[in-house]
């Protein structure tokens, strides 16, 4: 007889479920087991872990029970726990998608949240939304991990101690009473930017009740200079954005529009669409870039000019003068005549600007000049004048209504705090203690306020210094709304109840305005009703449509075609000169980190391990400078056993100092340094701890972007940095192939002339090729012409395939687990290099070298051309990785999913187990691999099988079991904002992949090995302007096909290393 059952652990709700399981220095398995057998005893254990008597009693009793009936000989009893009431729509084991959006400071990113059994596991772009078209970026992909971040605080605190909701209730009441008495003069709100119309509505309500209250908005990376320029040019309440859909000539001046410049997905997609070249004669756009540090936009440039950020004004003035001589208009004339007559920046070739101007003018109407949005308003105003002369306004540069009304700045707020007028300060999101300009000494100001309250999804430095901390919600936990980049209205639909007692900004504001906490989407619906001006059934239908599709397209577009010449001229008059930078007085630039943005993602492990697209740096930031600057300052980088050993410097600016490692970045402008923001917040949690330095400490109100007069001193110390690619060269193997458009037009089969492809003798494999007779033959093609190297694919793959993070120490040993990596190669001179990105995943070779060496048949070929891994067969010999010519296999040296990253070497002594919340994110259709197992890209075999099964389920008793063409996408392909990755079935003629593989510019890596990869590349085609000074018009070996064997293309050099 079996014994009577105890109930299994309660289902996932309540606080106890989320508790950290390693907390009591015992394994979660053990604890869970204890819970099941002796719920009461286990509770006692928690209260008194040292009670020997309890321990012995528990152990004794359980051993006795285990002995009865020899339960151990069978497998342990498991339970199936159904719902008591079935939730509507839920089919357990099937995923569901919900339209939602990630709020960002410059417009939300429309997304689909994939949920499995009620928990969101993956984010995808919303395919219906014209701005996203199903694409996403690294931040959208990684934001799901923030939801499950174990460092999120689970309760309210008052002065560092746990508080309950009634106390907060009383506090809100008190704040309201106090504000009523002063008609709001004592109340201030400091918010981040969420672009939410509902928040704007609540703000208006708050200011109606308390007219003198302060509403300030602070975003460290969106200082609002573009809004200032837009107001001057197009009137108040406007903003502008690029529209690259028809742009044929683009000049980006210190504008990383493909990357960190609040890169709109649409910009990347439209730019890539204009870059795509399939057959001779296809039109290709041309990109000019003038920038201080080598960004991914710079790597896509056809012509790149190294230019200090402070010289952009002078550069644009010269450009404006050149354009005026070719195609002037009144606005540009006015701007140029009022602007100071700055000389051409030192070292800049006038011919470069002249030819660039000529090209922009030739393509007037389809050309645009983009300027970084953190450049001074005067420079941006001048750029708008230039754009108006180019006929860009309304075509390649569109004007739209501003997302939110102007608000006080953090400076205004600081002045009021200084004056002592504010008695209660409410901080909604953000982290001003960490990222406010240092000259405001915001920490002291905050301490001087009698009552301060911080509402944030993650506790940070500001939370610790505020008297109240209110746990906020992640965007997947509460209803919200926002405007997307193109002005469309998107709904932010929650997909899960708040994991802990969280409250959204909207809910909090609702309470602050004296209303009851809203139920469900009531608040959003109200905004929506007001926006659409509908009621009754029509409103219901429209609302359901909004929730289902996620957005309502933008209705109002400003018809502005011209700029206000006088206002622009007045602004352009303020263009300042910058002093010549030198080794003693460098020009610092505070740049946003591509991974961490302004620092909000620092506790996100996926983004920590996500290599910077250009420097390939993980887990750290570093001061970037050119090799000339480094030489002048006597600074060095060295690669020792794959680890970048960087000199640490002391950076001083206006009395503030910070110590940081330096990284010599090819292509960086001389005597200027880039200071990436966002790191150095140890308090955020265990992942953030110890990574990078805090560049905000140098940042001042008057130097929030440009910091002239920066000094670097050598400290004599070094810091080891984890870079994922220490080789910057191809070792002469022609992995990346490039040609100019003219060369492509002349011979579309140019890729075969590069390297030794033309010399390969008829080859025969030593081994038998596997039988490839499956119903599908999978293949992938990556177009190097459009791949910007943004690395969104890496995060998408991490999320889809349960890829663990391994920590800085392991990355330095070369043990990062990413299944797809993006190699970045430099070509040309180290000072003025060009760069190319190349995503590399498992090639799924038809004659796979890894398969022949596996002693246990753990990696074999399937009939559809996939090189498959059976994890449960793998014994970890690593022969396969050793025999892989592409180095795409990854080995689990440790149990990265089970052990803390700082205790990997403790072996069995380390507590085992992972946070419950992290487990919730895992994709249930992909095995979580354990220690000692090899893994690699599978071409998302779980998606393939799911698609095949869906087709069969649909077919039932018919013979049509084919997957419809184009319906199956791998995770990397789905995320790729440039549409550079194409995956599909070679046997289906309707699939794009087969057509691309047959193009003459298709080539495979290391073709001479005859491994017959299923992942191939389309050679990169650049579009240089032959008239430009120093234009490199020939990319192919000049001495005919053959002898070079790639020396031409692989001649980049490593900075500092080797």
């Amino acid at each position: 007889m079996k014994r009577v059952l105890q109930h299994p652990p309660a289902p996932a709700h309540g606080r106890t479920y989320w508790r950290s399981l390693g907390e009591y220095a015992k394994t979660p398995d053990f604890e869970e087991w204890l819970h099941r057998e002796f719920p009461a005893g286990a509770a006692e254990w928690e209260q008194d872990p040292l009670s020997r008597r309890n321990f012995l009693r528990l152990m004794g009793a359980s051993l006795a029970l285990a002995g009865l009936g020899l339960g151990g000989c069978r497998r342990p009893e498991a339970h199936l726990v159904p719902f008591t009431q079935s939730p509507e729509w839920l089919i357990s084991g099937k995923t569901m998608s919900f339209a939602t959006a990630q709020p960002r400071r410059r417009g939300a990113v429309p997304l689909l949240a994939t949920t499995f059994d009620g928990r969101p596991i993956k984010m995808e772009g919303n395919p219906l939304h014209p701005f996203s078209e199903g694409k996403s970026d690294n931040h959208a992909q990684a934001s799901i991990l923030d939801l499950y971040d174990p460092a999120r605080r689970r309760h309210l605190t008052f002065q560092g101690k746990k508080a309950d909701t009634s106390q907060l209730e009383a506090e809100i009441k008190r704040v309201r009473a106090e504000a009523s008495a002063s008609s709001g003069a004592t109340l201030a709100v400091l918010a981040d930017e969420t672009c939410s119309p509902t928040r704007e509505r609540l703000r208006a309500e708050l200011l109606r009740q308390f007219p003198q209250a302060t509403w300030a908005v602070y975003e460290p990376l969106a200082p609002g200079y573009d809004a200032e320029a837009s107001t001057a040019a197009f009137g108040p309440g406007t903003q502008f954005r690029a529209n690259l859909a028809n742009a044929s000539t683009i000049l980006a001046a210190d504008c990383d529009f493909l990357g960190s410049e609040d890169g709109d997905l649409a910009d990347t997609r439209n730019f890539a669409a204009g870059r795509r070249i399939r057959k001779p004669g296809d039109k290709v756009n041309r990109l000019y870039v003038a920038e201080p540090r080598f960004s991914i936009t710079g790597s896509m440039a056809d012509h790149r000019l190294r230019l200090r950020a402070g010289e952009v004004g002078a550069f644009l003035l010269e450009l404006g003068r050149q354009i005026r001589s070719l195609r002037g208009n009144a606005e540009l004339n006015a701007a140029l005549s009022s602007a100071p007559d700055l000389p051409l920046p030192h070292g800049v070739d006038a011919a470069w600007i002249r030819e660039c101007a000529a090209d922009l003018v030739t393509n007037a109407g389809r050309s645009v000049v983009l300027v970084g949005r953190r450049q001074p308003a005067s420079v941006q105003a001048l750029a708008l004048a230039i754009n108006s002369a180019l006929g860009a306004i309304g075509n390649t540069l569109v004007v739209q209504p501003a997302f939110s009304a102007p608000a006080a700045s953090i400076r205004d707020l600081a002045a009021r705090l200084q004056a002592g007028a504010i008695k209660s300060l409410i901080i909604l999101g953000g982290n001003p203690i960490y990222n406010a300009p240092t000259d405001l000494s915001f920490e002291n100001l905050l301490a001087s306020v009698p009552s301060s309250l911080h509402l944030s999804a993650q506790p940070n430095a500001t939370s610790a210094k505020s008297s109240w901390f209110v746990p906020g919600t992640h965007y997947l936990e509460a209803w919200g709304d926002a405007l997307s980049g193109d002005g469309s209205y998107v709904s932010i639909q929650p997909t899960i109840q708040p994991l802990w007692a969280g409250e959204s900004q909207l809910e909090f504001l609702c309470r602050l305005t004296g209303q009851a906490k809203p139920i469900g989407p009531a608040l959003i619906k109200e905004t929506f009703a007001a926006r659409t001006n509908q009621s009754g059934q029509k409103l219901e239908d429209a609302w359901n449509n909004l929730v289902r599709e996620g957005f309502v397209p933008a209705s109002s577009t400003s018809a502005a075609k011209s700029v206000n010449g006088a206002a622009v001229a007045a602004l352009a008059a303020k263009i300042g000169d910058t002093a010549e930078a030198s080794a003693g007085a460098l020009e610092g630039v505070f740049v946003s980190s591509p991974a961490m943005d302004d620092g909000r993602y620092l506790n996100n492990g996926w983004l920590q391990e996500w290599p910077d697209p250009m420097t390939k740096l993980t887990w750290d930031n570093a001061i970037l400078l050119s090799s000339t600057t480094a030489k002048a300052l006597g600074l060095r980088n060295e690669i020792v056993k794959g680890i970048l050993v960087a000199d640490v410097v002391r950076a001083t600016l206006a009395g503030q100092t910070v110590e940081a490692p330096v990284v010599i970045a090819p292509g960086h402008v001389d005597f200027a340094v880039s200071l990436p923001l966002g790191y150095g917040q140890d308090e955020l949690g265990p992942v953030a701890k110890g990574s990078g330095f805090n560049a905000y400490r140098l940042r001042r109100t008057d130097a929030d972007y440009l910091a002239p007069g920066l000094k670097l001193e050598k400290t004599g110390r070094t810091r080891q940095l984890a870079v994922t690619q220490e080789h910057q060269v191809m070792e002469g193997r022609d992995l990346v192939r490039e040609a100019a458009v003219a060369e492509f037009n002349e011979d579309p089969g140019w890729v075969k002339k590069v390297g030794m492809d033309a010399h390969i003798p008829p080859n025969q494999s030593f081994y038998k090729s596997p039988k490839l007779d499956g119903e599908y033959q999978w293949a992938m093609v990556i177009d190097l012409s459009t791949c910007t190297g943004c690395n969104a694919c890496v995060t998408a793959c991490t999320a889809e395939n349960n890829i663990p993070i391994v920590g800085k120490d392991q990355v330095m040993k070369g043990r990062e687990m990413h299944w797809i990596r993006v190699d970045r190669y430099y070509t040309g001179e180290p000072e003025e290099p060009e760069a190319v990105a190349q995503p590399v995943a498992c090639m799924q070779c038809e004659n796979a070298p890894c398969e022949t060496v596996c002693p246990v048949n753990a990696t074999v070929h399937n009939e559809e051309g996939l090189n498959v891994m059976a994890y449960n067969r793998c014994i970890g010999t690593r022969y396969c990785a050793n025999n892989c010519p592409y180095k795409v296999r990854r080995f689990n040296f440790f149990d990265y999913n089970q052990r803390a990253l700082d205790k990997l070497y403790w072996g069995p002594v380390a507590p085992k187990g992972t946070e419950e919340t992290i487990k919730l994110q895992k994709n249930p259709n992909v095995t979580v691999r354990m220690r000692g197992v090899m893994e690699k890209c599978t071409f998302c075999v779980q998606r393939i099988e799911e698609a095949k099964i869906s087709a069969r389920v649909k077919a039932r008793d018919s013979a049509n079991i084919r997957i419809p063409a184009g319906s199956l996408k791998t995770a990397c392909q789905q995320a790729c904002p440039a549409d550079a990755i194409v995956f599909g079935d070679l046997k289906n003629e309707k699939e794009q992949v087969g057509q691309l593989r047959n193009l003459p510019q298709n080539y495979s890596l290391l073709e001479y090995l005859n491994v017959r990869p299923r992942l191939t590349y389309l050679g990169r085609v650049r579009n240089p302007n032959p008239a430009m000074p120093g234009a490199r018009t020939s990319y192919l070996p000049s001495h005919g096909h053959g002898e070079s064997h790639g020396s031409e293309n692989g001649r980049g050099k490593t900075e500092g290393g080797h």
Partner: protein
Amino acid sequence: MANIFPRWTNWLPIKLLVCVAVVAASIVSGMAYYFTPKYTRVGYQPTQPVEFDHSLHVNQLGMDCRYCHSQVEKSAHSNIPATQTCMNCHTQIKAQSPKLEPVRQSWKTGQPVPWVRIHKAPDYVYFNHSAHVNRGISCVACHGHVNHMQVVWHDKPHSMGWCLECHRAPENHLRPLDQITNLDWEPPAGTSQRELGEKFVREWNINPPVSCSGCHR
């Protein structure tokens, strides 16, 4: 000189060899039987928290499998019915039966009934119910005649070799789609399972995976 070894030692090596061989063979064959799912799984029949009788519900009352296991045709996972499903009938029928006390308790408290799991594929196996029941594989092929079980037991080994037997020769198990949940179905007189199965393989394009990636991801 006398023989050091007596005469009987002549046969000793052979006797020893035979002994070792017999012991080894019995260990190997014993393990091959007793350590495989054929023995360790088949026959597993735990006591369930509610004495639910499949034979009563299916055989006598004529309920279809999919009344309770409603998602089996749509999902990889065949759901265990929610308490709600039981209560659809049992608020009226046998509403006071003491056997149903745990179900009523669950309905009242919202705590689910903890059914004991019988069939469990390992975590690295991604079995999909919908792919099978929509393409001619009946419940009975893997679960046995549940319709005759008062208390359900594990009827088939569910080992990889056993899976592959059918994946390599699906014609031995295919049946018309309207007979999937009729566990007592037999091929009509005049035809054989093989004949029918081969016809379905042809007409329905049955092509079960036999490579690793079919089930392991």
